[in-house]
């Protein structure tokens, strides 16, 4: 059985950044496992620009951003195996994988970094009524077809969900000559970034229909059109508001789900809110020596934040391999309070925080002029006012080590609304 200090499951941006960081910390025995036939993950199909503004202070396309990391992986001589699917991870960190070259094999690792990314929520999971014809795709599948396979799946398009991939694909399909009739969003706000709404919809005159949804799909074999209706405040369609949009393509951008089937085989504890592993400040999961980063942990808006997070996972995994003492003391829970959906991490070993700890979270709705507050046992540790907080933008605060001194009770992150 091959043995490695560190096995990184996934060769996308998270896995590459984590592996590079671990290598730079002195971990030499590393293996990156990637199911696709190249490194880079989903970035390879994201041929639009806008990547790297934080990391490299320049604007790159997805493949360019990925290449910066894959070049570094090669430069550092970090071994990676492509076309390799991991089938199982045991709690003892034995990893079963399969590939054309090596067949089915089990390898053993001292530490594992989970970096499998996420998947899109499909039509069936959304429960949209109607027929099941050809022409209904998740936005990412359509993106792959257009950008990697060179085929445009349709000419008249409706997009359900205003997630970033949906917005990007609205522009992409338009540039390919298709007519995008509307982007339909169930919520009263978009789940995509503001800049994507401006650059992908507004610039092309594509209407964004907030508080609307698709209520029926027509066409038994091939998509003929969809009915769109307004929804009330409980997101229930309002009878009489149906409008028919003829189309041959319906793209779905209705949420991303961290892909943790392998984490489950290992017995990693998952958060019911994010769908990703519950981690502490070192991004270590409920299983010692198993770390998680990137979209498998929680869905990010920007790859730059994935990279930053993954570096921390890599450094901590390297520390674990070197025999870093287990986290000292007892952890405190980090929990979401009013207006906050979740926090990553969800527990904190205050004594092992070096300079400061990142707390990342999303809000539950749109808050204008509100404040983020962090408290523990009635004591306020942190407060930051913001112009606007929206669910589509992940928030990131850093709690300095000195703030955490003497914290023994649970930490709560919440939103305080502005007084009227």
């Amino acid at each position, binding site marked *: 059985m091959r043995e490695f200090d560190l096995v990184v499951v996934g060769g996308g941006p998270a896995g590459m950044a984590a592996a590079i960081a671990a290598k730079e910390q002195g971990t030499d025995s590393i293996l990156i496992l990637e199911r696709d036939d190249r490194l880079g993950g989903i970035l390879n199909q994201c041929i639009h620009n806008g990547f790297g503004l934080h990391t490299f202070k320049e604007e790159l396309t997805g493949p360019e951003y990925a290449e910066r990391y894959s070049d570094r992986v090669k430069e550092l001589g970090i071994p990676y195996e492509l076309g390799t699917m991991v089938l199982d991870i045991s709690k003892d960190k034995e990893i079963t994988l399969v590939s054309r070259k090596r067949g089915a094999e089990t390898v053993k690792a001292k530490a594992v970094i989970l970096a499998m990314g996420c998947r899109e929520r*499909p*039509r069936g999971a959304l429960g949209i009524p109607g027929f099941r014809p*050809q022409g209904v795709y998740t936005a990412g599948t359509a993106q792959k077809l257009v950008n990697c*396979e060179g085929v*445009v799946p349709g000419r008249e398009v409706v997009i359900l969900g205003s997630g970033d991939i949906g917005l990007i694909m609205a522009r992409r399909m338009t540039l390919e000559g298709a007519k995008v009739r509307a982007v339909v969003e169930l919520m009263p706000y978009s789940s995509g970034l503001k800049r994507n709404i401006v650059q992908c919809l507004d610039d092309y005159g594509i209407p964004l229909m907030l508080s609307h949804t698709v209520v029926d799909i027509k066409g038994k074999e091939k998509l003929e059109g969809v009915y769109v209706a307004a929804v009330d405040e409980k997101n229930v369609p309002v009878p009489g508001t149906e409008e028919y949009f003829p189309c041959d393509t319906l793209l779905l951008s209705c949420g991303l789900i961290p892909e943790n089937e392998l984490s489950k085989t290992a017995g990693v504890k998952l958060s019911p809110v994010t769908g990703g592993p519950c981690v502490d400040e070192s991004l270590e999961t409920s299983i010692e020596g198993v770390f998680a980063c990137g979209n498998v942990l929680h869905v990010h808006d920007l790859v730059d934040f994935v990279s930053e997070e993954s570096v921390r996972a890599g450094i901590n995994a390297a520390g674990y391999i070197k025999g870093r003492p287990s986290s000292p003391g007892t952890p405190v829970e980090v929990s979401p309070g009013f207006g906050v959906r979740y926090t990553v991490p969800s527990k904190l070993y205050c004594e092992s925080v070096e300079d400061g700890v990142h707390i990342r979270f999303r809000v539950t709705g749109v808050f204008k002029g509100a404040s983020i507050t962090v408290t523990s046992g009635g004591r306020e540790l942190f407060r930051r006012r913001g112009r606007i907080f929206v669910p589509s933008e992940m928030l990131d605060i850093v709690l300095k080590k000195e703030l955490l001194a003497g914290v023994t009770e649970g930490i709560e992150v919440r939103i305080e609304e502005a007084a009227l």
Partner: protein
Amino acid sequence: MYDVVVIGAGSTGCAVARELGRYKLSVCVIDKESDVCEGTTKANSAIVHAGFDAVPGTLKARLNVRGSRLMPQLSKELDFAFENNGALVLCFDKEQIPGLEELARRGAENGVEGVRVISGDEARALEPALTDEVAAALYAPTSGIVCPFEMTLALAENALANGVEFRLSTRVTGISRSGNGYTVSTDRGDIEAKIVVNAAGVYADRIHAMVSKTPMTIIPRRGEYMLLDKEAGGLVKHTVFQQPTKMGKGILVTPTVHGNLLLGPTAEDIDDKENTATTRSGLSEVKAKASLSVKGIPFGKQITGFTGLRAVGSTGDFIIGIPEDAPCFIDAAGIESPGLSSAPAIGEYVCELIGGIIALEPDPGFVAERKGIVHFAALSAEEQNELIKKDPAYGTVVCRCETVTEGEIRDAIDRPLGATTLDGVKRRTRAGMGRCQAGFCSPRTIALIAEKLGIGLLDVRKNGVYESEVSGDA
């Protein structure tokens, strides 16, 4: 001139074809769709009913019990998934218990073994997720579950191997008497046959009316279903029914042979024989009624919803026989529930009827066994390695949710009666059947189909019929 033409390549038509494959006959199966298993067979509860529900003395009773007895052996011969998981029929009110006792009596009369009424607590001991409202249950240990796609494909492939021809993407437009047989007119030319078998599902009444003036009506009864992720599949082990009504066996909760959880169906008589759309109200009804039987169903784990049309005959029983005004024409119509369970027995019975018309001479070359597509994920590491050594395509996992390899997909496309559509690949291999619903694997599957058929990626269809002839080996 064929000895027998079978119209319809669903579970009934394919079961008939498989039986006919035992004899020295020339047989052809016709279907308007580009694949077998495209109608009622592809969207139902996938249950092998024990046979306690049908009224004693009916064809349904006899053929169900016989079919369910044949199923275990058949599943081994033809290599398809079948599991004897047992069933519970629930009642929620002590006053309904006599109804369950009546079912138990019927079961005994129909020859079903082991059927008995148990208390609510006994039922909950067997199936802890049952709700507290369950007052009593009928326990039927011989009930089972099956994969209807695999079963039908297996029957068809075995029939093909034994010399039965298949003409898919071929729509019957008329049937006329000619000499001592029939001319079946289709959109791809006329086909002559001595005997015609009508296994046309919801369209059986239209086919029947082409040759006979005796009345027959087939009403499509719409049934909506929800399929949940494998994570939810372990919620129940048995198939959990509610006490049946005249509209059917009610909403059930059952594991599938592949480990998903299936809920449904609704029952709604409609006019449109093509209306397989799901509805908001239908799916709400499934949720509400399933929750009466089983607690804690994680509806959020839904991965898809679908609708099937049961072919409900006007007599209340299966309509199998020769109309008085149409000799050599055999109806196998009105095959609603328990049609899937009965299919092997319907095959035998129709074969007997054919034997009353022409002599059935056993074919010594008949091969009873068929090997299915290997399921890579189910193999041991040694077996997986052997397979990959022989064909490296088995080392590439294309469908990550269901762990389906390129080797399996290639086999599904390359084998006789192979898949020509995405849905065809899905039914044969489960690629695209998992939680991401083909999001990741469909570009690769499309490419593999396009390569085989020699067409462009955009020309590959999800389902339905190609305008030009592309179905290779059929």
